[in-house]
């Protein structure tokens, strides 16, 4: 079969880094090609070069056998290459139809020819078996549907080669399955797909061939059928990856967190929680499963004291903390890895050490009578960077010099160092690479084995299932199901997540 795309010997340098070093990627016509690697491995760079967002310093790009120069996304679309970004580029208060035709509008005189546009789009939807209500506004449709709109938008521009940049990161398991199905259908119609992802299961399930990158070079490529999770992850990380999280036997101890009939007040932009009864014990990880936006944020923040409680009571280590402020709860033994590390968990323009001392700057030996001891602070920060494998020359660098995974390690270092009785870990591995995930999971397990309590919230059902001793499913702000480890598979839990089912004992 002919090659749809050949990226030959591409080298791209940024100041101080070689993002792509002699990278060659060949993608055949009508295949799904997986592109995998850690954050910073150079996947995005090579795709940006293909899509015209960046220019290569050296190397040749061939599209359908023709050598070409791609200077802008317009050039790329002209060659039939479309890219769908992780963050959708859609106008929220316009209809689906208008979003699809944006920038490529059929006109009748001065007016938009919506009728012919509608016909064309409906033809595409029928051909590829995708269904979206064209008259719905973007802000009314689900994430999965938005993604479909993006794909339709690309197809409407006669794109034959689609680049999907981590498309499943924001989807539920069911939506992911639907996307993978759509991809197969696109392939049958002759489309070529480059599929960037962190999730190896999806690579094995959906792709025909795969290219693996690490630190700017290609470390392997070949038919997916010859690969296994173990082999792929070794190529990605460059060493053996330990997937077996070292769990000791499950023996829960005393209650650490107890929530009784806790509700929050509904606010715009957040799902309130209703009548939550929840208990987390020493030596266990309780995982909260649920589609994002079903009350996870409020649940976490009400425990942390960041969102006011409308009714109910919360106790931490058998002490009622309902009326205590954030700092007193933290002193009382609460650690909190927030879901949004940039908005809540860090300050980008501060140094790493300033980010690390948030929980202890006010206590000895780091300060005395309001005067900071920079020597002690820096020593401790450097020590923490070393212990938690934060990749930085020293802790006096600004936080935004770090990659996402390393920023998350800073958050984790800070929250673990205060030796919390209860650690709330919200989306602890969001957007971080395999090496960091392995590390973070190991740390959470270690904390649990030491007899501490962990409340894990994650949009990744896999993560919840592999780490949690108990799994709680949240739907529209209520607990709808509870399982012990290995009691249910992901499809069963998925049904509860989507509200199709609910367990009787969880009412009220």
């Amino acid at each position, binding site marked *: 079969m002919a090659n749809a795309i050949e990226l030959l010997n591409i080298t791209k340098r*940024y100041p101080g*880094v070689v*993002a792509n070093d002699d990278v060659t990627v060949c993608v055949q016509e009508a295949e799904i090609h997986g592109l995998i690697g850690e954050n*910073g491995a*150079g996947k*995005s*760079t090579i795709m*940006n070069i293909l899509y015209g*967002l*960046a220019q290569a310093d050296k190397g040749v790009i061939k599209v359908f056998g023709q050598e070409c120069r791609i200077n802008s996304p317009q050039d790329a679309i002209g060659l039939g290459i479309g890219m769908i970004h992780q963050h959708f580029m859609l106008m929220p208060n316009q209809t689906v139809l208008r979003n699809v035709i944006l920038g490529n509008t059929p006109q009748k005189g001065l007016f938009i020819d919506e009728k012919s546009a509608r016909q064309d789009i409906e033809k595409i939807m029928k051909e590829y078996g995708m269904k979206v209500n064209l008259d719905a506004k973007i802000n009314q449709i689900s994430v999965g549907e938005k993604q479909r709109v993006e794909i339709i938008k690309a197809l409407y521009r006669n794109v034959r080669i689609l680049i999907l*940049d981590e498309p499943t990161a924001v989807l539920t398991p069911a939506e992911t399955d639907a996307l993978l199905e759509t991809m197969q259908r696109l392939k049958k119609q002759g489309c070529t797909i480059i599929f960037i992802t962190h999730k190896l299961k999806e690579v094995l399930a959906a792709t025909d061939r795969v290219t693996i990158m690490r630190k700017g070079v290609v470390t392997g490529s070949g038919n997916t059928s010859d690969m296994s999770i173990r082999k792929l992850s070794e190529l990605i990380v460059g060493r053996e990856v330990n997937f077996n999280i070292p769990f000791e036997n499950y023996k829960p101890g005393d209650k650490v967190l107890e929530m009784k009939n806790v509700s929050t007040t509904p606010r715009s932009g957040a799902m309130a929680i209703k009548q939550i009864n929840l208990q987390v014990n020493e030596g266990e990880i309780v995982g909260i499963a649920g589609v994002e936006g079903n009350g996870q944020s409020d649940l976490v923040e009400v425990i*942390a004291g*960041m969102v006011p409680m409308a009714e109910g009571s919360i106790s931490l280590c058998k002490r009622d903390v309902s009326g205590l*402020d*954030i*700092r*007193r*709860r*933290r002193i009382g033994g609460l650690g*909190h890895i*927030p879901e949004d590390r940039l*908005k*809540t*968990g*860090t*300050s*980008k*323009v*501060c*140094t790493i050490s*300033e980010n690390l*001392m*948030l*929980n202890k*700057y*006010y206590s000895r030996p780091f*300060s005395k009578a*309001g*005067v*900071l001891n*920079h020597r002690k602070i820096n020593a401790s920060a450097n020590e923490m960077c070393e212990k938690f494998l934060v990749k930085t*020359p*020293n802790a*006096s*660098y*600004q936080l935004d*010099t770090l990659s996402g995974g390393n920023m998350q390690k800073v958050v984790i270092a800070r929250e673990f160092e205060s030796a919390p009785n209860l650690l709330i870990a919200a989306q602890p591995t969001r957007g971080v690479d395999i090496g960091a995930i392995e590390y973070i999971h190991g740390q959470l397990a270690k904390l649990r084995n030491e007899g501490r309590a962990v409340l894990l919230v994650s949009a990744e059902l896999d993560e919840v299932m592999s780490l949690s001793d108990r799994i709680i499913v949240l739907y529209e702000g209520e607990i709808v199901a509870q399982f012990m480890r290995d009691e249910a598979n992901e499809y069963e839990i998925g049904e509860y997540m989507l509200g199709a089912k609910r367990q009787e004992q969880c009412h009220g």
Partner: protein
Amino acid sequence: MDKMMKKMGMLGGGGGKRSLKPLAKPVLMLIAALLIVMAFLAVSGYDPTAMLIGLKRAVTTDIAGSIRWAIPMLLGGVAVCIPFKAQAFNLGVDGQIYMGAVASTVVALALPANSGFWGLVLVFLAGMAAGMVYAMIAAAMKVYCNTDMVVSTLLLNFVAQLFTEYMAADVLRDSEATVQMNASKLLPESLWLPRLSYLGPSSANAGIYIAIVVCLLAAFLFYKTTLGYEIKIVGSNEEFARYGGMKPKSVILKVMAISGAVAGLIGVIEVTAVQHRLIAGFNPGFGFDGIVVALLANNNPLGVLLSGAFFGILKNGGSNMERATDVPQIITQVTMAIIILSVSSNIVIKKIKLKKRRAKNGTAV
């Protein structure tokens, strides 16, 4: 001072690299501004070197005048940069200066004529307290009613200014004065802040020592105290501060209190050292000069030492220029405006550069 800056790890910020580079840019901008003003003078038919003549006098024969103007510049710069670090904007420094002046005058006139040093201390405390309270009105409105502080502090300036006029023209007016003006009685001499007599007769006064100490204290506050850390965190990411258990609202109240007290200090010094009485229009807008000083110093209190001194010289250079040549003093205002433009355009250019770089790199690396 360089040693001190090094010690506080300020020069170069991030990677521990230290150089004079951060100073190069503002100096270049200042030179550019002066060149533009000279061109402007030449076009208008004046002697283009008039500005330089004025500036030369300001650093040689009339250094005392420069010191006199540097005092409010330094203090104004500090008063602006402290809240700015916490992303709170105090445009009401002028109002706080007025209140400080009024309060210190009232106390000074009420004290017995021979109260001496401790009387002066009391006068200072009264002025600082008045500035502090006045600043906290805006801060409390922000914290409890979420009023935009840019608007509230700005509007409170007019209230304070008119109040001062009323006090000077009516309540405290010296009815026995031979020349009638809107001014209070002279303060008893024992409550005058001493002038720097070794510089000859001038308005240069001991306030300069106070101003320098305040700059150093502000630097200490920013880089060495837990409050300084809280200010930085609140200023860079309020949500992060709250998440860590800080109380951003209380930090806002604290920085505004400190800022108001420093502003009040300007009023006290103007009354006790320069005018020796409360005069209705004593304040030519030191608060807004303070914004320029803080802007040029990039909100660094040690930088305020340099930029405040520079603006003191510039202001005094302006009056010297008027005295020595036929160029009006208003030209200094033009110079300041050009400096503001070049500083703020520098900020814009930085942002554009950043945007371009992001667009170029995409999500890579």
